[in-house]
């Protein structure tokens, strides 16, 4: 019997061949089994990587987490963080000549969901008119700051204030110093007295500051300015946290004082595990504290970023959802989708919260300390703000009504109005806090007008500027606004209005107000590591990259919608 190649199976040659094949197969199998066995049994020893204490793989115990620095995008991307701009009177003559404004960059989202706006901010030194407005606005705080406490009145000489308005006072104070209206001695005296008073405030049920305080005594009061407690506002606290962070980052010598204020507060109920913000009020019948979700689209995200600047993770509060849009003059205006009939909370769309985000935070994420001024890393906030601006310009162009809407006080009943772009299903709805429609009180708000003027350099905002820049009383400050229906000026003077106007003017000089933190770690993160206080009061750890709030985008309106 022969094979196909002419060999017989019993030949010598076939035997040698078969033997060779067998040796090769067995050898190969032995080798592979050996390698595999070695891989399984000996590999562990070879791949052990020693963990260096404090290194990347070292899981730092809670006791030591406070030592970590907060991670910002300048650290991750290895970029140079922004620098604090010099005061206006210390600026070199060519400061604005070399400013990077990204004028050639088209508007829209980039791949990281950052957004470049259609219009740029105004930049430059203040001219004579603007400087006069700044001085008058600061005069409000000179006149209505209480010597005894260092707190400024919210409205005129009525001795009462909130944390929101106290933040406005801090805004005015920082602006006055940076615009060289006051010198450092005066700034230090005022800010130190203010921070000391705030640290000594009696908290609402040992949690967080009461909603309202008497500015002469520093006592917590109710809405009628009588001693009592009414709860706390997460939005007010959020804005106050923004300004504490601004002060701490700009003036590191205030850091310990500022940290000691916050280390008295108890954050266990103001923010939940999902990152929603909660305010508190007192149940009228049972006298128990009731916590209720607080904030609607616009204010909620602004306050959330205030909390995030201090390491909290207000993930849900920072998201736009649930939101809907209403088509007004061709613009899809976003508004909060939570039904007021169900949640008993109005969904006002006003300019103010977007302005504050743009002026103070540059529409940037809390971890962003290095992107150029014209790139807004909290992209959808800037894109929504563009819509808020555009719909007001469109109204002016199509109806002739100058429009810069915000919440504002009015003289006489109802004393306060939400002068909205949209609310309760109606565009240009001017309503009282209880919901009455009061169109006679619609007005061009001074703070909104000058804020728009600074952040959107357009022909329309030039008109707003001309209407507002001289709208002041030299003795009392900038007027609240100009009635839309021709009743004249809104003859009320408030801390919020004058504070935001000063912030706007400072933004023209220095850009976004928040500057990067220049230190390594903070007492805010290291204190009480040896106790359970941090756990009980919900104090956060320094945010790492995994803790960053997500940068999101929403669909962009490509063309006008009619």
């Amino acid at each position: 019997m022969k094979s196909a190649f002419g060999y017989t199976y019993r030949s010598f040659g076939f035997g040698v061949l078969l033997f060779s094949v067998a040796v090769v197969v067995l050898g190969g199998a032995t080798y592979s089994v050996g390698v595999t066995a070695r891989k399984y049994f000996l590999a562990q020893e070879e791949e052990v990587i020693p963990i260096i204490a404090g290194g990347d793989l070292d899981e730092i115990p809670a006791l030591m987490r406070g030592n970590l620095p907060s991670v910002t995008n300048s650290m991750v991307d290895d970029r140079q963080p922004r620098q604090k701009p010099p005061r206006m009177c210390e600026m070199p003559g060519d400061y604005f000549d070399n400013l990077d404004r990204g004028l050639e960059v088209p508007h829209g989202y980039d791949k990281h969901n950052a957004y470049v706006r259609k219009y740029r901010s105004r930049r430059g030194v203040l001219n004579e008119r603007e400087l006069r407005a700044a001085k008058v606005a600061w005069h409000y705080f000179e006149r209505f700051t209480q010597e005894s406490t260092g707190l400024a009145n919210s409205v005129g000489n009525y001795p009462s204030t909130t944390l929101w308005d106290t933040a406005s006072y801090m805004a005015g104070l920082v602006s006055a110093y940076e615009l060289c209206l006051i010198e450092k001695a005066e700034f230090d005296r005022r800010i130190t007295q203010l921070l000391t008073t705030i640290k000594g405030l009696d908290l609402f049920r040992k949690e967080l500051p009461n909603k309202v305080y008497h500015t002469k005594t520093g006592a917590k009061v109710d809405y009628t300015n009588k001693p009592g407690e009414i709860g706390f506002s997460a939005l007010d606290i959020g804005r106050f946290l923004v300004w504490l962070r601004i002060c701490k980052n700009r003036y590191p010598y205030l850091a310990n004082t500022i940290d000691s204020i916050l280390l008295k507060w108890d954050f266990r109920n103001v923010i939940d595990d999902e990152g929603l913000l909660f305010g508190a009020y007192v149940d009228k019948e049972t006298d128990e504290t009731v916590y209720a979700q607080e904030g609607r689209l616009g204010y909620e995200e602004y306050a959330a970023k205030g909390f995030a600047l201090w390491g909290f993770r207000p993930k849900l509060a920072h998201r736009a959802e649930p939101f809907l849009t209403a088509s007004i003059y061709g613009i899809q205006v976003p508004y909060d989708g939570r039904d007021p009939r169900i949640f008993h909370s109005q969904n006002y769309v006003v300019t103010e919260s977007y302005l504050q985000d743009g002026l103070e935070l540059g529409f940037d994420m809390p971890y962003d300390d290095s992107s150029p001024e014209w790139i807004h890393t909290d992209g959808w906030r800037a894109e929504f703000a563009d819509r808020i601006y555009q719909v007001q310009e469109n109204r002016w162009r199509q109806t002739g009504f100058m429009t810069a809407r915000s919440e504002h006080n009015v003289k006489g009943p109802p004393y306060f109005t939400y002068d909205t772009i949209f609310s309760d299903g109606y565009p240009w709805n001017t309503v009282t806090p209880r919901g009455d429609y009061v169109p006679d009180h619609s007005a061009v708000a001074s703070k909104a007008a000058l804020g728009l003027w600074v952040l959107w350099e357009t022909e329309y905002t030039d008109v707003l500027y001309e209407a507002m820049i001289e709208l002041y009383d030299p003795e009392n400050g900038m007027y609240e606004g100009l009635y839309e229906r021709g009743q004249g000026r809104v003859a009320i003077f408030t801390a919020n209005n004058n504070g935001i106007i000063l912030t706007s003017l400072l933004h023209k000089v220095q850009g976004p107000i928040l500057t990067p933190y220049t230190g390594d770690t903070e007492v805010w993160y290291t204190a009480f590591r040896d106790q359970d206080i941090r756990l009980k009061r919900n104090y956060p750890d320094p945010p790492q990259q995994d803790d960053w709030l997500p940068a999101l985008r929403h669909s962009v309106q490509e063309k006008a919608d009619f």
Partner: protein
Amino acid sequence: MKYFLKSVVAALVVSASASGSLRAQTGAPIADGSTAFASENAILDTSIPFAIGAREARQALRGAFGWPSFQEGLVEGVYFRFDPDGYARFAPTPRLDVDVFEVICRPRTYACAARKEGLEAFLTERGQLQIKLEEALAGDLFFVSEGVSEIQVPERILQPLDVQLELLLGTGGELLIRRGGTEVSRISLKGFSAVVAYLRWIAARQDYAVLPRGWPIPNAQGQQDGSGMTAGATWNSPMPQPQVLAPGYAASVAAGIAPATSAAPVTLAVPQSVPVVPQMAESAPQDTLSSQELRTELETLKQIILQAQVGQAVGATAPIGSTSLRDTTASFGLDVAQMTNRDMSEQPAFGELLSALERLERHVVDLQMGGSAMPKQVAEAPIPSGDAVAAPMPVPTVVPDRSGLHSEAQKLDFLVTQLGLDTQTALSVLQLSAQPRNAPPVTATRVGQADSAGLAGVSDERAQVPQDAASSKPVLYQNQLVDQILAELEAEIALIDAESPASVRAVDVSVNDYVLLSRYFKSAALPALQDMAARVSDSP
């Protein structure tokens, strides 16, 4: 020396006035809105619903001041919202944007006025409704228009309105003003009746008794402090309920007995359930003491009022104390409102006056109701055995609710302020109505009828006091005491009127008004009331 003294006095006066004006300048708030929310300006409790279905809500406040709550609801086809200071808006649309009646109250008073376009409605000092029309001139003709139909209304709509005219304007439609055949003005009356009820409700300190017949009020007068007052689920019937609850029902509610239907309160109000309280006789010395205290306080009150009058005479302003007295002690609330029109902070005597008034009012009510405190004591104390216990029949112990009782003073107030009677007429009516007090116990049906007829207090008290208890001495004694005191007050006031009529006349009431009112009452109101009282006394 005389010149020196004059100079010193003049200098002191000048310096005092200068410092005062300086204070006024520096202290005057720039933001007048902030002071509007002082707690003293709160005259309404927004947790007490104006009508069934109304709810209290929190205001969305962002600033440092404002009213923390308000009330909103729907009644008689109009939506409404009001604040603790009485500021309210009534409109046919929930947005309260068009066709709005706006109610504004003078700070720290119960003096409110409703305005819509050229129409202003307010209550007079006597509680009568009066309207003002901006466009109206002498010789104008007035019409109420409903669709294509019109009826002419007399010119006396510009005077305090009688019931018929008020009802006519309250039917809705529009009020037309024509001058020489030309229409001058057309004012919508939508919401007029609701606004009028609101004005009366404010003036009566949110007492449901003043609301019109058939007004949809929650069936829980005795639970005004209850947490479920504004929760719709706690109301077991959406239908209109009796406006005044019998005390037995209020007690049962307080005891946790769930209200069943609209008929239930009437059933529970049957007076057999009221305990016989012979212990009241034992408390007679206490009553005597109280009456002495009452008289003492009356004297104090008179002195304070006289002092206030003397002080105001210097200021040459409208007299208030005298008119307050004339309106009897029952109208203390309105007097308080008048007095608080003035700046209380500048006149400390008014504070004393107010506290004295409040004490007096409490005493009057306590004495009048007597049992409101005493039955509670009876219920808590062991029942003594012996002759004192005249009623061995086991009856349920019912603690009459204080708010459910209507004192003689309140009745008088009702007759004077709501029906527009003068004081003497009102007293005579009260005496007429007091005659059948010894009549057999009223039935539940009668209680309901009487309540709905508006004389709630009369029947209410009768419902509380059974036949045997009604004839017991202490109750009669208390009523007599109050009547006696009121009569004494009337006599004194009449004397004061006779002595100085000019000083006690209200500035805005003319002689013609009195003549007109007197004629009107003689012709219409008094016979009608007498008939009504007779019917009540004749019925079993």
